[in-house]
């Protein structure tokens, strides 16, 4: 893939931003921002694939992220045998019954042709089925939630390394997306936006309140990391040697032995933090490049060409024999799966799963701003959007503080207006986001790095 000049400039800007922050605010801060930027970039690529390639709107980002997060919990948390003992059978039975119910409804939809009869049968079956399932389900969940509620109170997971959850999270999100797509994809784009937004709220509220599954608002903490812990690193020989070697010139200048040990200890503590964040960054970057590579390959393939054809003129594509509905579903599921991967990575990075933390403003609309600002239909643009927007989201607060202090420099430090403005610094980032979005939509509606028009 050949890059244009302005694309090189965009990459240079991204890299230099982090170096700049590294020198001003410290490398630790810079790496924290970098890690979130990479995850944001992956989410943005996921949305970009469905919106940019095929014009399928996906406002359910928050729900897919939460599914990814759930995957991280289920894969990595050690299993709680006691919960399984008391509630496993009940949950199993209700799950089997649910599958039977779904199959029955599908069968009715297929075999009963009369529309009115179909509704009646469906309603009866669903209500009856739900009543039966509830009977098993409520008992089971109650006994699970009673198992040691302060520490566990849920089913736990499989106890596997958390890194597997990145794949599983993709599959979870894809599964949910498949159901949503089956239900909603025939709708007009702005209806679809509202419906996906609503369904993502439903997904999150299920995760919030089904405590047997996700511990709900009690949160899951202490998920195992895929990278070493700082405290272990600080006691490992090779790491201490590495730090000593890297700082040998600085250490050699210090003559006093105890002083030298003191300095070395501080360096090791700082270094271990940075090392952990660097390892995360390497893992995340690997995932990002893999997705980027295949997304680009897909875009340039005949399949990607078909997607663009569907996006630009659905009727014409349909007339050419392309199954528009099926392709919409496929691309919606793929996009959601990538978002799900990002969701699992997000939980991995935090080490905890907080269902109540999923809010549409932060996890749906900001991602969409990233897509629009970066340039829909261009994967590099998506990454760029993710980096720039997340960067400004974080750096908005210090910047605003600086601006307010400059503007109100004539006022006394106890001035009510100044204090009020300084108190509301966190809210200025919303103002910035809104203004960025409005300005981009007005003056560069195709995004900062627009999609390349291909004549081939």
């Amino acid at each position, binding site marked *: 893939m050949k890059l244009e000049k302005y694309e090189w400039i965009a990459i240079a800007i991204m890299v230099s931003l982090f170096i700049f922050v590294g020198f001003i605010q410290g490398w630790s801060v810079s790496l924290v921002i970098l890690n979130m930027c990479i995850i944001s970039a992956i989410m943005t690529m996921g949305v970009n694939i469905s919106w940019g390639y095929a014009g399928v709107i996906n406002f359910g980002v928050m729900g897919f992220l939460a599914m990814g997060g759930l995957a991280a919990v289920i894969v990595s948390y050690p299993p709680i045998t006691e919960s399984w003992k008391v509630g496993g059978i009940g949950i199993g039975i209700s799950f089997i019954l649910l599958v039977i119910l779904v199959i029955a409804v599908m069968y009715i939809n297929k075999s009963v042709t009369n529309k009115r009869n179909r509704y009646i049968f469906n309603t009866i079956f669903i209500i009856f089925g739900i009543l039966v399932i509830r009977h098993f389900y409520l008992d089971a969940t109650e006994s699970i939630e009673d198992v040691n509620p302060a520490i566990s109170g849920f089913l736990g997971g499989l106890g596997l390394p958390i890194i597997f959850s990145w794949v599983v999270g993709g599959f979870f999100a894809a599964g949910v997306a498949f159901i949503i797509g089956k239900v909603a994809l025939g709708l007009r784009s702005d209806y679809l936006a*509202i419906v996906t937004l*609503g369904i993502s709220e439903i997904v999150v509220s299920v995760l919030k309140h089904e405590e047997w599954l996700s511990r709900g608002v009690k949160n899951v903490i202490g998920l195992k990391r895929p990278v070493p812990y700082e405290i272990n690193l600080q006691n490992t020989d090779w790491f201490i040697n590495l730090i000593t070697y890297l700082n040998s010139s600085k250490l050699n200048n210090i003559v006093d032995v105890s002083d030298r040990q003191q300095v070395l200890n501080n360096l090791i503590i700082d270094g271990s933090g940075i090392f952990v964040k660097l390892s995360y960054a390497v893992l995340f970057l690997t995932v990002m490049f893999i997705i980027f590579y295949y997304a680009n390959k897909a875009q340039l393939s005949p399949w990607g060409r078909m997607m663009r054809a569907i996006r630009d003129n659905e009727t014409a594509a349909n007339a050419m024999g392309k199954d528009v509905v099926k392709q919409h579903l496929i691309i919606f599921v793929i996009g959601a799966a990538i978002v799900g991967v990002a969701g699992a990575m997000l939980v991995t990075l935090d080490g905890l799963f907080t269902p109540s933390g999923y809010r549409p403003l932060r996890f749906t609309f900001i991602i969409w701003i990233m897509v629009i600002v970066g340039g829909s239909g261009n994967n590099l643009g998506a990454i760029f959007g993710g980096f720039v927007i997340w960067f400004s989201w974080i750096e908005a607060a210090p910047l605003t503080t600086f601006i307010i202090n400059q503007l109100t420099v004539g006022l006394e430090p106890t001035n009510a207006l100044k204090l009020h403005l300084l*108190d509301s610094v966190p809210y200025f980032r919303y103002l910035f986001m809104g203004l960025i979005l*409005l300005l981009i939509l007005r003056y560069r509606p195709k995004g900062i790095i627009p999609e390349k028009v291909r004549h081939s």
Partner: protein
Amino acid sequence: MVDFLNSIIVLLNFIIIPGISYGSQLALGALGVTFVYAILRFANFAHGEIMSFGAMITILFTWFFQSQNIGLGIFPTALLALPIGIIATIILCIISDKFVFQYYRYQKSVPVVLAMVSIGVMFVINAIIRIIIGTETIKFSDGQKFIMKAKQFKVMTGLNEGLALKSSQVITILITILLLTFTFWFLQKTKTGKSMRAFSDNEDLALLSGINPDRVVFTTWIIVGVLACVAGTLYGLDKSYKPIIYLNLVLPIFASAIVGGIGSPFGAVVGGYVIAFSEIMVTYAYKKFFVYILPISLEPSGLVQLLSTDYKFAVSFSILVIVLLVRPSGIFKGRVL
């Protein structure tokens, strides 16, 4: 007989009255969304924030009036501040149209782009509100809180169950009736209203007949401003004012508008009540009701609750999904004012 009366009172107290007042608030909100959708042809995600903005201005002036000791006696002071809030909201709507939406209207952008633009507007208004008033919960209703307390009712009728009537609920219902009557009268009887309906029905034909589109849009924003500010203030008066709630309120409002048939004002009103009642009815525990109405041998052991109240929010969306599946055009076929 007494048991039957008691059970009716239970329903009235816990389902019907809260349902009507919440439904009225949703209906006013959904009506605003519908107006934007029918005339300007996009889904306005900023509507919740516009409501919030109106409520905020009303609260600020309520505080001002309270500090000046100006009040309405038994009525909440907010009613006095409401007209100022309405004017501010209309100004906000017209400014956002002039600086943002107008450009895309002239460009004839597709609805999705306008929806994105409205998200940008949503962020900006959201930030302004939080910068001005913060994120705390604010209670600003004063005056007489209850028209009838549960205890009074019990003493009055000698029944077991009390019926409480909050003044905010009565005010909500009265203002809604007033505003809805006025809106529908305006649409059906006045010349401007008729031109708006013509515009929403067929834009090109309306333009050919000499209807001034800018004037129609201007009137629309005025109506939207009034509806949004009143809906926001009533919601804040009834529950309490918290900026984040209004962001979440957008979803039930959209659900109401779509369930009723987006673009149809009558549908929006009906949709508001449908959503409100289903949210309350599905999550209400009917035990008390059945205790009165059934003989003792049949008394239910559980709470007789279809879904726990945690899912209140999810209910409106499930209804939206079901309606879209069964009848995609909504209850009343939309797209015409």
